[in-house]
C-alpha cells in the first residue's frame, strides 16, 4: 500500500509539473499575436516594391505597433503589390491621406509598414485604400546608384 501511494504521488507530481511546463512554454515564452483576438479593420495599400516584407509583419505608427500585414499579393493588371493591413479597431482615427512606407527595423532587422499621419478630417475605414505609399528601399539598388553616381562625379 505504501509503495502504491508513493507511485501515485510521484506520477501526480510529474504530470502536474509537465503540464505546468507546457503551459509555461505556450503562454510565457511566446508573445503570441497581440491582435489575434481583437476587432480589426482592413485597409489596402499598393506598393511598387515591397522588398522582403512578409505576412504578419507589424504595422506601426509613431513607433507603436497598431496592426499586422495579413496578405501580400501581386496585381497582374497594375503590376504592383497589394498589401492588406489589419489595423486594431481602437485606432480608427487615422487620417485617410496618411502615407504608408515599407521600412526596415535597424540595419539588418525585418521589414515592417510604417504609417505617417496625414492632415485629412476623414479617417481610414474598413476596405479603404491608402493612396500615398513609399516602396521598400532595395539595398542593392541604392549601392548601385551610389557606385555609379560616385564614379560619374569624379569624371
Amino acid at each position: 500500500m505504501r509503495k502504491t501511494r508513493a507511485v501515485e504521488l510521484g506520477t501526480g507530481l510529474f504530470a502536474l509539473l509537465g503540464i505546468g511546463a507546457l503551459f509555461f512554454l505556450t503562454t510565457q515564452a511566446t508573445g503570441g499575436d497581440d491582435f489575434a483576438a481583437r476587432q480589426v479593420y482592413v485597409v489596402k495599400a499598393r506598393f511598387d516594391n515591397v522588398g522582403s516584407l512578409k505576412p504578419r509583419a507589424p504595422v506601426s505608427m509613431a513607433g507603436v505597433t497598431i496592426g499586422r500585414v495579413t496578405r501580400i499579393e501581386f496585381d497582374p493588371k497594375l503590376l504592383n503589390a497589394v498589401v492588406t493591413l489589419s489595423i486594431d479597431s481602437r485606432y480608427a482615427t487615422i487620417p485617410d491621406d496618411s502615407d504608408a512606407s515599407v521600412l526596415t527595423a535597424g540595419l539588418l532587422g525585418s521589414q515592417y509598414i510604417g504609417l505617417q499621419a496625414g492632415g485629412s478630417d476623414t479617417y481610414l475605414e474598413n476596405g479603404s485604400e491608402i493612396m500615398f505609399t513609399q516602396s521598400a528601399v532595395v539595398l542593392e539598388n541604392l549601392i548601385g546608384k551610389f557606385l555609379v553616381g560616385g564614379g560619374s562625379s569624379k569624371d
Partner: protein
Amino acid sequence: MFRETYILLKEFVRTFGALTIFLIDLLILTPSVLFRRFRLVVDQVYNAGALSLVIIMVCGLFVGGVLALQGYANLTRFGAEDAVGVFAGFALIKELGPVITALLFAGRAGTSLASEIGLMKATDQLSAMEMMAVDPIRRVVMPRFLGGVIAMPLLVAIFSMVGLLGAHLVGVSLLKIDVGAFWQQMQNSLDLRDVTEGILKSIVFGFIASLLAVWEGYNSIPTAEGVSRATTRTVVTTAVAVLITDFMITAAFLRN
C-alpha cells in the same frame, strides 16, 4: 562486396518492416490496454517519467546555462547580448529540449525497459505468462511502451522550461543582461508555431524511444550476452533514429 552490401540492405529493410508491423500491433492494442490496464500504464509513467525527473531537470538547468554563456560570448561581438534570450529560447524549445531529452530518456529509461523485458524473456517469464494465457505483449510490453509515450512530451516540456530558467539564471543574474530585454525579445520572436514544433518533436521522439526500447528487449537473444547487446543497441538505434527524424521534422517546419 556488393553482395554483402545487398544482404545488409535487405536485412535492414526486413528489420524495418518487422518494426513497423510491431508498431502497428502495439497501436491496435493501445485503446484496450489504456482502458483495461490503466494502472500498469501509470506505474510505467512513474518509472519512465517521474524517476527521470531529477536527471532531466539537472541537465536542463546546465544546458540552458551553457547556452546563455555561449550566446553571450558570441553575441557581445555584435553588441547584441540582449538577444541571448531569443537564442536560448529557440535552441531549447525547438532543438535541444526534444533531442537531449530523447537521448537522456534512451539512456535512463530505454535501457532499463530493454534489459527488463530482455531479462524476463531470458528467464522464461514471458513464456510462463503465455502458458497462463496472459498475453505478454498486453501485460508487459504495452504498459511500458505507453508509459514512455506519455512521459516523453512532459519530460521535454520540463526540460525546456528548466533550461530557460537556467539561461535566465546565467544570463540575467550572472552576466547582467537586462531582464526585460531577455524575456521581451524572446516573447517577440517565439511563436506558438515554434512551441508546436517542439511538442510535435517530443511526441514523435517519445514513440521512437519507447518503441525501440521495447522492441530491442522483446526481440533480444535470451542469454546474458543477448540482453546486454539489446541494451546497447537500444541507445545506439534510438540516438540515430532521433537525430535523423529531428532533421526531417525541422526541414518540414522550415518557413516558406
